[in-house]
């Protein structure tokens, strides 16, 4: 018990340190606070936020430290996401507590950011968010890092250390889970029952420390370790602890990627993964389950004057060793697999108009007890089309030049949901009934 108190104190200390570092950051500098810090416009770091350009990736790898702006405003920024969500067929009982079955307006998220450059080599991205659907305020994506450069023989090494709270939030390519397309998803439409552990399951529920190197502006290698927060710490930070299965010990995360930039082209190919031992629903009587996530990804960007094209894809294979869950009656089998595929293609004009089409697919072995679906399968798949208008990527209005907005219309079409295309819930609901139109405004200032 004493140790638990210390664990809580350590976790809380880390968070307070994060907030303290952010609050104490020197006012300098496409988060609007980064735009002020650098004196650059959002379009320098983003093709259409929040997809990063090659320069944006290096800004992040350099620890968010690049300066040069003349603003003396404090390093804070605000994000608002008002949304309208329509599903092909309403959700009986309401899309969420306090909302109707269909056609819901919501302030999906409201966030405050701080961070940026603290010293020449220390910087941060610190976000806290009010969830307007769950009516919950808590910490959100956080990445504090130290970065520096060193010469190794004839080679240049950019190296760093990252302290963060979400596996892949520290990544700089828009193919890994934390920053992949779709960049915004409706929270008032039905959510599939299954998902791999590396895809946001641990977001804000862990604290991770890692070291990375970027050799000769091309080869990226990272090794991190993640540990679950104590439940008391999670509650203090506003994290939803319902039905969570924490990591037992430390879960290693790895990332290797090669990027080549030539002329107007930038090509990346990589792999990433997470190995986690998990206490199912916090129960320890039967030991732990083991989850191994191995992903491969690729991204190609072509940026030429006022036009840009980006293709992103990833494939994740997750192996489940479910000995503990099976013994506890939480799974039908002792071994399952899940596979997740994403691919998307964007055309962006003048950093202002963005057209994106994407495919997502999740499938795996049948396990009715584990997934709770009618036919036992976890399969969900579909297509996403999105058009977005970003009028301020080259600078906001004169009274607040760091204002930015993304106004978008997104359509998600399911051909499978929770295991089937037709009657997936055994009560007559089809996957197409969950097709969703999301109209959103994503405002940053």
């Amino acid at each position: 018990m004493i140790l638990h108190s210390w664990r809580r104190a350590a976790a809380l200390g880390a968070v307070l340190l994060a907030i303290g570092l952010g609050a104490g950051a020197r006012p300098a500098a496409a988060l609007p606070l980064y735009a002020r810090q650098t004196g650059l416009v959002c379009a320098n770091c983003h093709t259409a936020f929040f997809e990063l350009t090659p320069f944006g990736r290096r800004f992040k790898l350099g620890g968010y430290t690049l300066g040069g702006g003349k603003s003396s405003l404090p390093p804070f920024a605000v994000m608002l996401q008002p949304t309208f969500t329509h599903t092909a067929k309403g959700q009986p009982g309401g899309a969420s507590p306090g909302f109707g079955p269909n056609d819901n307006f919501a302030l999906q998220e409201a966030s405050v950011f701080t961070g940026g450059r603290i010293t020449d080599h220390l910087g941060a991205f610190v976000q806290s968010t009010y969830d307007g659907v769950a009516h919950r305020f808590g910490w959100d994506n956080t990445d504090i890092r130290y970065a520096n450069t060193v010469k190794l023989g004839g080679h240049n090494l950019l190296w760093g250390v990252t302290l963060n709270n979400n596996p892949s939030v520290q990544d700089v390519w828009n193919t890994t889970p934390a920053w992949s397309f779709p960049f915004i998803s409706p929270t008032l439409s039905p959510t599939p029952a299954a998902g791999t552990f590396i895809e946001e399951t641990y977001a804000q529920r862990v604290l991770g420390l890692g070291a990375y190197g970027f050799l000769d502006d091309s080869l990226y290698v990272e090794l991190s370790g993640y540990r679950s927060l104590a439940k008391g710490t999670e509650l203090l930070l506003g994290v939803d602890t319902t039905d969570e299965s924490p990591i037992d010990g430390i879960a290693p995360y790895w990332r290797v990627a090669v990027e080549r930039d030539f002329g107007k082209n930038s090509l990346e190919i990589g792999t990433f993964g997470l190995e986690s031992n998990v206490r199912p629903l916090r129960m320890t009587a039967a030991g732990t389950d083991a989850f191994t996530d191995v992903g491969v990804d690729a991204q190609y960007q072509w940026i030429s004057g006022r036009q840009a094209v980006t293709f992103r894809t990833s494939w994740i294979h997750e192996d489940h060793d479910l000995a503990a869950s099976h013994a506890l009656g939480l799974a039908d089998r002792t071994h399952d697999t899940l596979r997740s595929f994403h691919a998307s293609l964007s055309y962006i004009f003048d950093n202002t108009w963005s057209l994106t089409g994407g495919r997502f697919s999740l499938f795996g072995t049948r396990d009715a007890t584990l997934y709770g679906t009618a036919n036992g399968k976890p399969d969900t798949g579909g297509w996403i089309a999105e058009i977005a208008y970003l009028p301020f990527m080259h600078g906001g209005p004169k009274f607040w030049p760091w204002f930015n907005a993304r106004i978008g219309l997104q359509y998600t079409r399911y051909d499978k949901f929770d295991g089937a295309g037709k009657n997936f819930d055994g009560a007559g609901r089809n996957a197409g009934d969950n097709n969703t139109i999301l109209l959103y405004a994503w405002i940053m200032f």
Partner: protein
Amino acid sequence: MNAKLSSPEAARLSRRALLQAAAAAAALLGAAGSAAAQIKVSRASVAYQDQPDGGRRCGICAHFVPPGACRIVQGPISPQGYCTLFTPASQNG
């Protein structure tokens, strides 16, 4: 819970580990605070070219450091060059 981990000795070790971590963090912050130049990015990452893009050239850019460097991009930089970060000197915010 693992009895060994919850023992008072383990708690003392945990406190010692925390103190060591705090000392390491202080050293890191100290090193960070004393470091000098900011990290610059490669020329390839900003599509640098030795020729201007119409009237846009490094010599009139807010980030240019005469006679042949840039505060953001690794050098050398030609005043007649151009890259995707071009910002007219008058617009730097």
